């Protein structure tokens, strides 16, 4: 349902672009400004001189490389493990009839509703018992569980949209079920798999609260926690913080551009009464 463009809509569109985009613009502009321009009571909307000082300061700040490596480790661990586990579950939910399916769907959705902040205390105690506090493996384990419901649900959405007839035709032609999955289902699912994997990537890359609580050791922090370290009791280093924010945001923004469409389809799949 689309209609001809109208002046009202276009004006409000431009207005929305300015309002939504300004914080992002301001981050980028600040990150390239010299210190004197940043710490001014009359900041200018456009930078007069460009400098990379903030970037070199941010990158030279203690812990950047370590935080980056830690984040990469956490992200890869979370994505690989959760995708693997979730794909199995999604196939069962989307393609098979079994007793207790509604209960499984129900519990998957239910755990998604439990506030993370409510679980911090027992999770902390649990991971202490398993000797996984202050360990990246513990964080990966926690992230897997937290992205799992969404990943299962989204994969299910993609799977449901692939017609069952294709698989059945392959079975009739003499494929075994695993063969049918490998040659028919998985190739058709590839875009959905990529989109979901990137979603898990973004979640693990962006998560702050758990990492902040579970990783107190400076050598174990992830990128968002590293960002938090720019504010001390003496105040905040705004220029380097904005540069660091840009560095942290770039990978996710790029990945997000790829999957935006699939993600929305995954979320809304079957939600509109056709």
């Amino acid at each position, binding site marked *: *349902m689309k209609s001809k463009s109208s002046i009202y809509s276009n004006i409000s569109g431009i207005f929305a672009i300015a309002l939504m985009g300004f914080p992002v613009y301001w981050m980028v502009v600040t990150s390239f400004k010299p210190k004197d321009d940043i710490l001014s009571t009359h900041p200018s909307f456009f930078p007069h001189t460009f400098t990379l000082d903030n970037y070199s300061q941010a990158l030279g700040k203690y812990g950047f490389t370590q935080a980056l490596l830690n984040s990469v480790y956490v992200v890869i661990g979370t994505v690989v493990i959760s995708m693997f586990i979730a794909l199995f*579950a999604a196939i069962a939910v989307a393609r098979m009839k079994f007793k207790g399916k509604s209960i499984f769907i129900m519990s998957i959705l239910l755990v998604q509703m439990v506030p993370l902040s409510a679980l*911090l205390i027992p999770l902390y105690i649990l991971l202490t018992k398993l000797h996984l506090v202050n360990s990246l493996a513990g964080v990966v*384990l926690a992230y897997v569980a937290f992205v799992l419901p969404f990943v299962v649900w989204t994969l299910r959405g993609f799977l449901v949209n692939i017609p069952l007839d294709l698989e059945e035709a392959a079975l009739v032609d003499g494929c075994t079920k695993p063969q049918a999955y490998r040659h028919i289902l998985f190739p058709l699912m590839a875009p959905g798999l990529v989109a979901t994997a990137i979603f898990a990537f973004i979640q693990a890359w962006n998560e702050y609260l758990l990492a902040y609580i579970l990783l107190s050791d400076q050598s174990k922090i992830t990128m968002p926690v590293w960002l938090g370290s720019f504010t001390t009791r003496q105040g905040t280093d705004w220029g380097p913080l904005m540069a660091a*924010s840009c560095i942290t945001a770039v990978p996710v923004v790029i990945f997000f551009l790829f999957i935006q469409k699939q993600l929305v389809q995954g979320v809304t799949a079957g939600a509109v009464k*056709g």
Partner: protein
Amino acid sequence: MSIAAVRRRKISPWPYLLIFPSILALILILGYPIVKLLNLSFQKYGLTQIIAGRGVGVGLKNFTDSLSDSNFWTILLRTYAFTFCIVFVTIIVGAAMAHLMLRMHNVIRILLTAIFVMVWAMPQLVGISIWRWLFSFNFSIITSTVRSLGFPIANHNYFQNIISGFTIIGGCVAWGALPFVTISIYAALTQVPKELIEAAELDGATRFQVFKNIIFPMLFPIYIILISLSVIWDFQIFSHIWVFLDARPAPQYFTMAIYAFEQSFGQSEYGKGAAISILMIIALLGFTGYYLKQMVKIGDGQ
């Protein structure tokens, strides 16, 4: 049930094998902590108990203490009000934007979508950092712009007053949530068949009637999902308040999540913190139930 019994009833073990790893992960990382949380909430679990390694059962004391504390009710109400305002603004603005997007020039719509995607992708802490910078005490671009418009305002601590403080924090939350809401509604709108609307218009329906009788009923499920999800997310906001206020929020900024955290990690009263967490889950149950019902309907209707 033994495997033989399963075979006899011709139930394949496959689905159970396939969901087993997921169930295992969920039970270990979410199931166990939920049980532990319940368990803790009936105990006194402070520093002495941590050292001893076990809590002391106190029955319902943590709950009755919280429920008879007027602070608790103030914080609960504050959290509801904060949540309601953010969800109201995001849904209304999101829906309006989505409808306007249908009538935008292609170039503008694509630009807007690109901005939305960028904001959507921003890591939470990046978003919070930017907003803190926008409203910083000394060098705020907002303060200086307001001043240059002729209003005599000096450097301003926006967080002194809780109304303006919560408005900024809420603004940051809504800014981050709008892309998801708007794009979801827009995607759903584009799926409404054009013929249906044309037919209605031919029959003389006004634009409002088309909205009321065709678009709204078709989009109803997606609104339910978006509203319940937003309520659930916004109710448990923690990082925004925590980071905006330098990890030392004043008591008048406490919401349920901060309150529970403060009781446990700040006061080392883990039992009381657990009880507050459970009350927080209960406070959300209505919305959770509504959302679940809708999602299970979608999950079964394939």
